[in-house]
């Protein structure tokens, strides 16, 4: 995906595989080549060189694998009751202890990976696709269309994310899929605003004007000319969104608006364990560590990615 982004950077992007010229040859001399392909080293390799991105990426990969195989490698079925062993502290038999029904906490955490990963990537994908299309359209047309779209986006953004997601869930009802939709909708205006600012820039590039001059239609220019050039920004934005999706999704689960019991869900496990927190803190600590580590990994990865793909420091982070 990342390699792809490099290749599509523009006419010069195809040369991305060629070794970087020695720094002294072009030092200080701006050339057209620099403007088109500023990164002759493959970006994925620079990404690997960024420690934080590597650590974050590896942890994310582990979580992805757990989302697929977690339920299979769990030591017990996540819904199985062990009536003799309720509220057991962590031990050799139950590595992270058991809950009030004697269910194995580790197995429930492993089985719960799937729902949070689904929210993280489902909501991000949906929200980024929607936001990108809206942002590119607004940026391409400009004028009244841009003005209208951005006013509506401002209106949607004047809800704090969690509040908007709550409103949407009030309408749609509580479920995993609805959390994905709700979180994605809160992402659309935020992604759109970022991508629009990129699009305004791309719009003035000669190749867009060339496409207009040869009579290409707007959908073609937006998807074939502008979209590939907005990809680095889109990738950075997606990686940042993943962390937010996990935070909002887990919070909604905690508030009881996600999957319903007895399906294992980290946020819900913490909510249920909350009343027993003083006698059985392992009920809360296990899923708490699982969520926190996942978001930290996502943020580390996003941090490294944005440093490689986007040199400007991001200032606006959105509520």
């Amino acid at each position, binding site marked *: 995906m990342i390699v792809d982004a490099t290749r599509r950077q523009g006419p010069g992007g195809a040369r991305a595989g060629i070794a970087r010229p020695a720094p002294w040859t072009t030092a200080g001399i701006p050339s057209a080549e620099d403007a088109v392909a500023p990164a002759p080293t493959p970006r994925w390799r620079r990404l690997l060189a960024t420690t934080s991105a590597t650590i974050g990426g590896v942890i994310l990969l582990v979580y992805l694998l757990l989302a697929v195989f977690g339920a299979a490698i769990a030591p017990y079925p996540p819904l199985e009751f062990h009536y003799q062993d309720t509220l057991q502290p962590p031990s050799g038999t139950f590595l992270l202890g058991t809950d009030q029904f004697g269910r194995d906490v580790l197995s429930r955490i492993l089985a719960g990976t799937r729902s949070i990963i689904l929210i993280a990537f489902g909501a991000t994908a949906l929200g980024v696709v929607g936001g990108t299309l809206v942002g590119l359209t607004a940026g391409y047309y400009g004028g009244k269309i841009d003005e209208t779209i951005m006013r509506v986006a401002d209106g949607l953004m004047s809800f704090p994310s969690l509040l908007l997601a*709550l409103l949407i869930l009030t309408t749609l009802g509580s479920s995993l899929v609805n959390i994905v939709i709700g979180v994605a909708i809160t992402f659309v205006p935020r992604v759109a605003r970022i991508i629009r600012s990129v699009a305004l820039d791309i719009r003035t590039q000669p190749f867009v004007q060339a496409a207009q001059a040869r009579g290409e239609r707007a959908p073609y220019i937006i998807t074939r000319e502008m979209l590939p050039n907005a990809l680095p920004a889109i990738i950075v934005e997606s990686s940042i969104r993943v962390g937010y999706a996990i935070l909002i999704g887990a919070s909604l689960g905690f508030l009881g608006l996600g999957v319903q019991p007895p399906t294992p869900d980290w946020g819900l496990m913490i909510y249920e364990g909350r009343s027993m927190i003083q006698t059985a803190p392992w009920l809360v600590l296990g899923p708490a560590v699982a969520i926190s580590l996942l978001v930290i990994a996502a*943020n580390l990865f996003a941090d490294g990615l944005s440093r490689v793909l986007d040199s400007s420091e991001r200032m606006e982070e959105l*509520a």
Partner: protein
Amino acid sequence: MLRFLGRRFAFMALTLVIVSIVIFAVTELLPGDVAVMILGSEATDETLAALRTQLGLDRPAPARYVDWLSGAARGDFGESLRMRTEVGPLVFERLKNSLALAGIAFAVGVPLALGLGIVAGLRKDRPIDKAITMTTLVGISVPEFVIGSVLIILFASLWPILPATSLIDPSANPLESLKYLILPAATLVLVTLAHTARMTRANVVRVLRTDYVRTAILKGMPRARVILRHVLPNALLPSITIIAINVGWMIGGLIVVETVFGYPGLGQLMIFAVTNRDVPLVQAVALLVATIYAVANLGADLLYAALNPRIRY
């Protein structure tokens, strides 16, 4: 300046109109209307129709929207479906509690965050910066309800010095039972602190790289003077905007934190309204919260424009 003020107020009014339309439309789309919710699904068609006429639900949506909004402007949000009381007084009582909690968190968190951000920015890449950056990364990564739960384990179980819940009488003055506020407020501080400190650090680093700071250093100005005269005023100006964004985080944080600690504020009321599909209550809380957020943003913009002579529209 007057034109700028006018534009900015008009912009806020427009935003609030869009917000109110979104709130009304979203709650309108609910499957089954208010009449069904009150009478239950077994009600006969005649009684439903009678109640709809009584509540005015048979009128077109735009008319009801205008009614709702003009009522809301007067503080009349109708009657809660579940609590059977006027929504207005209920909401404002909870708002008072939430404001007390948020106010404490704000008063402690903002200066602390700015201080940490400045220290980290000035000592970029030194151990203290790395320590602050790593800690704040954890701070922005750990959800509010996890931080809250960990604080309960630490300060209510392992070292029991504070109450784990804030189950206080909603109508009591929250400031009288200060110890119930400490853990929820600390959770809010930790969450918002991390964001603000990181952005402040980025601003300090950015200003340190500017030409005018380099000039000041090169002309031999003492470092303390460079920092006080050139770096901080320019680096802290954007913090006004950051603090306004903080209000947004604070609202999201309040919803979760109040649930963690059982604190009787607006956030907890919102969750109650959402899980019980109490439409008038959802509408009132959402509109109130969005208004607060819009006003905070307006305040930040005006303050920013007032303090930054380069911004004149």
